[in-house]
């Protein structure tokens, strides 16, 4: 079975927010909400300062706490690649998934259900990359199958130093950042 995820090169990312705009456009994200966002971490003092820019979103964790805590099964793993999705018609808006997500990736859609990044599953099913990946002007974002050792994302992880976000939270996230 495939395990879809992303690899994002922090050395190439300039924080232009094109990925954010592309997501809002592609998925009709309501005003004032964000399925993906940019975080800039500045560390140290000149001349030893470092800046890391991260394009963040739902990590589509393999051990997703949002899926285990959902009382109705609305939060679930999609058949294709273990993408974590929310079935809007099953969601009661109890917000347990929001409380259980260490990444703060979920929000309540104005229509009442909980919403978040879907890895643009409608595009992935057609063999396309998610919108954010496809528009990135620096080509710092890569989408693919981690269970395929020959995929681009697997090869990038084999060849470059990388980290994921909050691995200590025990959720087995599927987005990696190349450093």
């Amino acid at each position, binding site marked *: 079975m495939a395990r879809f995820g992303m690899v994002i090169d922090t050395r190439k990312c300039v924080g232009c*927010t094109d990925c*954010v705009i592309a997501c809002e456009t592609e998925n009709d994200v309501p005003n*004032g*909400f*964000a399925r993906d*966002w*940019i*975080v*800039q*971490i*500045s*560390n*140290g*003092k000149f001349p030893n300062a470092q800046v890391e820019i991260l394009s*963040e979103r739902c990590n589509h964790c393999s051990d997703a*706490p949002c899926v*285990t*805590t*959902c*009382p*109705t*099964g*609305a939060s679930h793993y999609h058949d294709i690649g273990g993408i974590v999705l929310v079935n809007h*018609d*099953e*969601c*009661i*808006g*109890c*917000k*347990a998934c*929001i*409380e*259980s*997500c*260490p990444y*703060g990736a*979920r*929000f*309540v859609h104005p229509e*009442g*259900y*909980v919403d978040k990044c879907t890895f643009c599953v409608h595009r992935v099913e057609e063999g396309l990359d998610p919108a954010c990946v496809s528009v990135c002007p620096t080509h710092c974002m890569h989408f693919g199958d981690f269970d395929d050792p020959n995929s681009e994302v697997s090869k990038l992880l084999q060849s470059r130093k990388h980290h994921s976000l*909050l691995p*200590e*939270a*025990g959720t087995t996230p599927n987005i990696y950042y190349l450093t």
Partner: protein
Amino acid sequence: MLEITTTRHNHLIDPILHAWNWEIPVYLFLGGLVAGMMIISGYFLFKERVKEDNCSCFYLPMISFVLLSLGMSALFLDLEHKLFVWRLYTTFQITSPMSWGAWILILVYPALIANILIRPPKFIANKIPKLAEVSQKLIEHKWAVKNIGVVNMLLGGMVGMYTGILLSSLGARPLWSTSVLWLLFLISGLSGAAAFVHLIAKNVYERELLAKSDNAFLIIELFVIAMMIIGLVTSSKSHMAAAHLLLNGPFASVFWIFVIALGIVIPLYIQLLAVNHKIKHTPIAPIMVIIGGLILRFVIVAAGQHSHWF
């Protein structure tokens, strides 16, 4: 120097998670109180106190029924997709404490009704005369009354534990991620219920017994709070930071003054004097315990949402 900037702003999440408002602490408090009352009422049934004409086991289930319904209403108000609430009962998600809770609460109502049927309140009995026959038959069968008591105690224990497990299963919130939260909420629920029954009980023996029990529950509650904080401050950096929210952070004043001092220590002192016949029983102490239990839920829910991994 470490500086973090983000372009994100999601309502209820940024800058501080505030997805659960007043409804959840009120629901957890009422759930705990009902759990405690079911255990107390069940114990009295098991001990065959139905012989006493003014046993609190005759009116506690009706009060529990109303309070539980109020708690469920608060939970319903919290839902963002209210019309889909029935979805809770189209599935059972074994890993979701909320799903367990939804189904346990469905079992609680029949147990409360069975307890009510032992002696239905007059305003119901007058309307449905047949209930008097049911009540008579139940009282004639000691084993039935005892079993209703056992079931009420078991389900009360499950509801009391569930209110804590609901939060502690959410590992993304370090303050809740403690294995003693279920015990804290169960004991706090028992303490609040004992205080409530002490306040309203007509039977002198029950009033005295519950004042003494409440003192024991309050002492255990202090011990469990200490265990919880020790567990957090000796854990990871995120858990230590979560403990400091209560110890000396933004929630410290409410926690120390309203939960520990006014909610536990002072009423415990007053009730210890009362049960040792140094002073007369006063309604002030149990009222303080009940309000302290409510504030405990508010503090734990709010501070828990404040805590996060880093």
